[in-house]
């Protein structure tokens, strides 16, 4: 059972492992037999509780089932020409999703707040949702079109390939590039939501809110890609499109800027001006990066999903294009361009992050410039009274005896005998305790 406890203790946070060791060491003092076994079972309960085993197992099961379902629905038949690259994409994506959090946990620590966990979960759900949507789109692109469509109409368009007419082998370079983009995106999300990067939940929330606003407006304007030949925005007409386009440009640069400034402005900062400036920069930077990433992921998932629905469901086609008014070839042309432009969304995952990064740095600079740095007062309050000394974090569980300032108590006995001064203080409390004790 000892090895079991050691393995279990490794699952606990580092600052808690001493406690697992303490329970196990104490078991030697418990009478052998059932009492000792019960003590050790209690120790295992402690490990399970502190290691958050239930949540970990639940998360693992949830991820496993979601990844399995996504992979199963996206897994291509071996008869299709792109089977090798599509399968590599599925396997690579699942491996990235499974392994990168372990690496991030090892290097940067686990997420330590609810917002960080939610952000990670949303990112994972979005990336998994892209798998079946991309599978539908790939199937459309790799299949000869429905009957009654004049293929010559599309052969001349800007070098786009027409389904059934694409030649050549699998596009491994493109596949590797997409996997790299996914990996970079995941690394950014995992790093921002890890404990050691010290991004405040508020900064993550501000960034996510700004990103959702950006993504929603972007999706409203370009729900089916960015091909100028087919605007593909049936719900926006006339001047509304121009208004939304202006809003997109404002939000694209403004959302990370404002998110970075607000997050930097409102974060708690240490007393040291240099550290305070760095803390604001860190929070602002993180919020801006999150806003760009969330915005890109939001519009990528919704855009890819809408495109998949467009080619998969007749009612979506009819609803988006009022298809009865268009010929089959015209509808097909729109579907073709929408599906072939889907890969452009992946560029957003990088582009938005870069824009978010640059604008967030600017936003954090604005926060530092507009809010005075503390001059030795309490946290966040310029000119306040000096705050208390920071309490050092004990390295190995519990509060170390030598962390206290009372040297007399440091010399306290840990023998089992009664000593002088061991009784609680007399007086009112003593009387109260006397009442507790004897009635």
């Amino acid at each position: 059972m000892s090895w079991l406890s050691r393995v279990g203790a490794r699952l606990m946070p580092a600052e808690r492992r001493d406690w697992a060791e303490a329970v196990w060491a104490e078991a030697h003092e418990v009478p052998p037999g059932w009492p000792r076994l019960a003590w050790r079972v209690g120790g295992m309960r402690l490990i399970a509780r502190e290691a958050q085993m239930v949540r970990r197992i639940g998360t693992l099961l949830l991820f496993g089932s979601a990844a399995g379902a996504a992979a199963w629905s996206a897994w291509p038949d071996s008869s299709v020409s792109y089977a090798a690259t599509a399968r590599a994409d599925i396997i690579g994506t699942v491996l990235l999703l499974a392994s990168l959090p372990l690496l991030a946990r090892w290097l940067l620590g686990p997420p330590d707040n609810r917002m960080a966990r939610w952000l990670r979960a949303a990112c994972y759900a979005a990336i998994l949702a892209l798998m079946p949507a991309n599978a539908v789109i790939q199937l459309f692109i790799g299949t000869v079109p429905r009957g009654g469509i004049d293929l010559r109409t599309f052969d001349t368009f800007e070098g786009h390939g027409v389904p059934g007419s694409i030649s050549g082998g699998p596009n491994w370079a493109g596949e590797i590039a997409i996997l790299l983009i996914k990996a970079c995106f995941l690394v950014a999300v995992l790093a921002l939501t890890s404990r050691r990067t010290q991004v405040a939940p508020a900064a993550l929330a501000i960034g996510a809110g700004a990103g959702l606003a950006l993504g929603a407006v972007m999706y409203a304007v370009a729900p089916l890609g960015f091909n100028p030949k087919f605007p593909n925005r049936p719900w926006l007409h006339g001047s509304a499109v121009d208004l939304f386009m202006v809003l997109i440009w404002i939000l694209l640069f403004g959302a990370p800027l404002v998110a970075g400034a607000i997050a930097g402005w409102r974060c708690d900062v240490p007393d040291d001006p240099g550290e305070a400036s760095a803390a604001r920069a860190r929070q602002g930077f993180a919020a801006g990066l999150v806003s760009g990433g969330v915005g890109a992921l939001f519009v990528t998932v919704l855009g890819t999903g809408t495109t998949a629905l467009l080619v998969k469901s007749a009612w979506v086609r009819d609803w988006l294009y009022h298809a009865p008014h268009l010929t089959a070839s015209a509808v097909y042309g729109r579907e073709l361009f929408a599906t072939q432009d889907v890969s452009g969304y992946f560029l957003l995952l990088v582009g938005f992050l870069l824009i978010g990064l640059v604008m967030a740095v600017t936003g954090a600079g604005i926060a530092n410039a507009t809010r005075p740095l503390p001059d030795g007062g309490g946290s966040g309050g310029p000119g306040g009274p000096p705050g208390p000394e920071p309490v050092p974090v004990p390295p190995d569980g519990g509060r170390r005896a030598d962390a206290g300032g009372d040297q007399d108590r440091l010399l306290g006995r840990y023998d089992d005998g009664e000593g002088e001064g061991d009784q609680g203080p007399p007086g009112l409390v003593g009387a109260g305790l006397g009442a507790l004790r004897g009635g």
Partner: protein
Amino acid sequence: MFFSTYVEFRVVKPRREFSPQTLSVLAALYEHPSRWQHGYALASTTGLKSGTLYPILIRLADRGLVEACWQEEPQPGRPRRHLYRLTADGLASATGALAASAQQQPSGRPTAAPGARHPSGRGVAAPAVP
């Protein structure tokens, strides 16, 4: 004819700061505030099982009410033991909490963890409050 509106204000009892189990641990530590005590002794005194006692000690240590250290000179052939006692803040908190608990129970019945049994499994533990 007058219509009256009556607004009833009820005094909502504040949430207790410490659970009965935590109070029993505080009381056990409070009995000998300067002495380092080990887990089994606390479990014997309070009647709490290890799976209940140690999470309480962890929370108390997190709040700075209990300090912990490792035994410096372990008995030969035995592992080092983890030892606990109240900090100055813990002493003050325990004093207040135990006094408040005493006031809430004028009959003087001790605050024992409900259902607490001796770790050996033999019967209900002795009252935990000094």
